[in-house]
Structures are given as C-alpha cells and as structure tokens.
C-alpha cells in the first residue's frame, strides 16, 4: 500500500485557488478567544457555531465562492488555525480552551494576515471587498500593554477603511478595555448567553450580503436582535 503523504499546511501553490476561482473575494478573519475561561458550554457552543457558519454559507452558491475565512485563536498562545480559504473549502475546526488571553498579539496577527491576503489578491488580479476582522472574547488582554499598539492599529485601519473590526463580547468580557480597542463608530455587541449559533447565522448572512454588494450600494447588515442583548 502506498504511503500517504500528509497535505502540507503551508500553501504549496500560491495563486492556484485564484486560477480555479476568479470571483471577487470577501475575506473574514475569525479572531476567537479560546482561553481557559471559555471552557465548557461556551467553547462547545462556539464549535457548534462554526459548523453552522459553514452550513449557512454552503447554502449560498455565490457566497461559497467569494467569502474567504481564516481563523486565529488566542488561548495560552496565538494560533493561526487556518489561513484564508473560500467557504467551499472551509473545514470548521474543533477548538479547545486553555491558558490566558494574548489578545493584543492576536489582533496584530489578524491585521497582518489581512494585509498579506490583500497583497495576494492584488498580485493575482483578484478584486475584493473590505475585509472583516471578527473578534469574539469573554475576557480581556493578558499580554501586558500590547493591546494598546493593537488598539491603535485597529482604529487607524478601521478609519482608513483597510478593514472593518467587529468585537463580540461574551459574558465576563472586560468591557472597559474592549471599548478602547473597538472603533467608536462600530461599538461592541454583547452576545446573549451562548447564542453562538445565531451569531454565526448572522455573520453568514452578513458576509453573503457584502460579497454580492455592488458599487455604490450601501450594505445593510441583518438585524442582530437574534443573538445580541
């Protein structure tokens, strides 16, 4: 029996995905708090939410080709769990919770990933929509003052429309610090209990709308009433 070759984790053929699918891209980084405090019901609900996210996007043929998802977790350390892949290739991971909350570093990693992905799009002549960085946390940064640099980059980037930064606070989140990170014109949304599934349904519907928006069109995001308090 032939030996199996593990699929490499780094992209061996950069640009291949664009040759197969030249649709404009709608990139979205899920920046997920997987620190110890998320253990139990919250992390289980988050994992279920990710599966819902994939299912919801799969039901939309255009979104499936256009929405590109990347995941960065921060729990004990910052982990880029998956680099950008279109919804049709997105495999929802099973995340585990442990450790503290290096949020500052995680935010900077997410911003760097967005910048690099945009560069890739430009190189391959792929048009794209404004990227989203979508952070979900039940805590606050534990990596010293690093969040201050991250906050500055979030606010600058959001103001220059380099990306749109969203912050979803789960019960227990450090609202004071999060308010200093989050852009003032897009305030923190508070998750109602463990309604991750509803949250990801909303995110899927939002990304579907953004990914088919046309020049000059204002994107009206769906109502957040189903999951936020």
């Amino acid at each position, binding site marked *: 029996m032939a030996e199996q070759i593990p699929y490499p984790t780094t992209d061996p053929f950069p640009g291949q995905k*664009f*040759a197969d699918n*030249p*649709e*404009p891209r709608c990139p979205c980084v899920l920046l997920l708090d997987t620190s110890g405090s998320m253990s139990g019901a919250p992390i289980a609900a988050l994992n279920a939410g990710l599966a819902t996210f994939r299912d919801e996007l799969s039901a939309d*043929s*255009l979104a499936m080709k256009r929405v590109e998802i990347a995941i960065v977790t921060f729990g004990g350390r910052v982990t880029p769990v998956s680099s950008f892949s279109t919804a049709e290739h997105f495999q929802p991971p099973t995340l585990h919770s442990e450790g503290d909350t290096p949020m500052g570093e995680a935010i900077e990693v997410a911003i760097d990933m967005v910048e690099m992905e945009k560069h890739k799009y430009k190189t*391959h*002549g*792929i*048009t*794209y*929509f*404004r990227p989203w960085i979508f952070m979900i946390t039940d805590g606050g940064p534990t990596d010293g003052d690093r969040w201050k640099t991250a906050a500055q980059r979030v606010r600058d980037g959001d103001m220059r*429309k380099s990306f749109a930064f969203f912050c979803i606070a789960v019960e227990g989140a450090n609202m004071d610090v999060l308010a200093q990170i989050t852009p003032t014109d897009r305030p923190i949304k508070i998750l109602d209990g463990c309604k991750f599934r509803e949250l990801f349904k909303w995110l899927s519907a939002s990304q579907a709308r*953004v990914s*088919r*928006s*046309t*020049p*000059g*069109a*204002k*994107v009206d995001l769906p109502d957040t009433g189903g999951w936020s308090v």
Partner: protein
Amino acid sequence: MSMWRLLHDSITGESHVRDGIPCQDAFQVANVSPIVGNSTLVLVCADGAGSASLSHLGSRIACDTACNLAQNFLEHGGDINSITREHAIEWIATIRAKLQDVASGQHVAVRELASTLLVSILGNTSSVFIQLGDGAFVVQEQGTCKVVFWPQNGEYANTTFFVTDEDATDRFAFAIKPPFDEVAVLTDGLQSLALDFARQEAYSPFFLPMFDALRAASSSEDLAKPFRDWLLSPQITQRTDDDKTLMLAVRNSLTSADG
C-alpha cells in the same frame, strides 16, 4: 457607405427582481449623419448606484443627455476629430447639472441619482471614448479583444465613481483611438465573465463569437431573443445577480452594403 449592425439589451439583476428594485442600467444609441465627415455611431451606457434611490432615473438621464450632447455636437458642424478632453469635461458638467436639477425637483440629494457613464463616439476616421466608473468598452483589434480602459473601481470590488461625484470632471478617463469595426460596451454586472482580471484584459472568447454571430445573422432582430435568453441563462446568472447591460456593434465597411 458604412453600416453598423447593433445588438443590445439590459437585464434586471436577480437581486433587484427579488427586492422589487427597478433595473438601474440604461443605454442609448444614436446614428448621426454629421455635416462634417461620415456617419457616426454614438453608444452610451450607464449603471445607477445600487444604494441610490433614484439611480434608475439617474442612469437614464445621464445616457439620454450624453447622447444628445454628442449628437448635437456632430450635427452642428463639430468634427469627431476635433473632440478633446475639454469637450468631455463640459458634457459631464452639463450632465451633472441636469441631474442636480432633477434632484432638486425631487427634493433629494444629487447622490440619489448616482450613476456611472460610458460614452463612445465611433466614426470612420477615429473613435472617442469617455468613461466614468466601472464597466468597460471592448474593441476588436487584429483578432484580439481589448479593453479601452480598465474599469474604474476604488480599492474594493463594491466601490466606484459616479457622474454625480463632485470631482467627476477630474476622474473620468478619455481617449481618442483609431476607428474600430467591432465594439462592445458593458456594465459591471458582466465584468467577471467578460474580463480577465488576472491579466487585466478583455476575454476574447466571450466577445469574438458574438461579433461573428452578429455579422453572420441575416438581421440583428433575429438575435434579439437568443441574446436576451443567453443573458438570463444560469451560466450568467450564477456568476452575477446584478443588473447587466451589453451593447454590441459591428460595422460592414463594404461599398455594396446590403442596406
């Protein structure tokens, strides 16, 4: 004697049908017999902004006004070879003023009539192209299709420029080119199918068979229904649910034109 044969249509995007929004694309054609020079074809199209409440009106007005301006110029002694960027600036300013008037009458901001604008003036000795915003002119040259200007977008796929923008007269692209016998104009709803974004070129296999079919048909009316059916077919609607407009023009430069 040169004869143009034309085929054009605008299709309301599925998303607009679903949301009860009218088609925001518009186009206009004029065959002009100027005092100076030979008969000239004016092809104009415009794509109203998705978010603007009266952009279907805006694109209509922009098209009709642009077409009238070009036609008046040619019919009152203007030579296609004398058209300059300054003329285009004047025309765009006139269109903008007209949109401003309509907006005031409707008690809305001019932004509500936002629309792109593509104007081509196709003569026997030269062609003039004016473009503001996305969409494209495509011309056939020695068997290859070329875009005149790459679509004008901002950084993101859902941003562009409009004739209602305050800096519209600075933003637009203008070019004088040699005459062409095969020309297409399209709005952004068809860009992803008709243009090769990696190479920033027109996708020749999209256009050449259509130019050939239009030449070969006994009359362009025969193609009107197949053309519309094709624009409504899943192979197109699966790729885009936006409004889409395609105008095709082929010229028979034969002395024994078949009328």
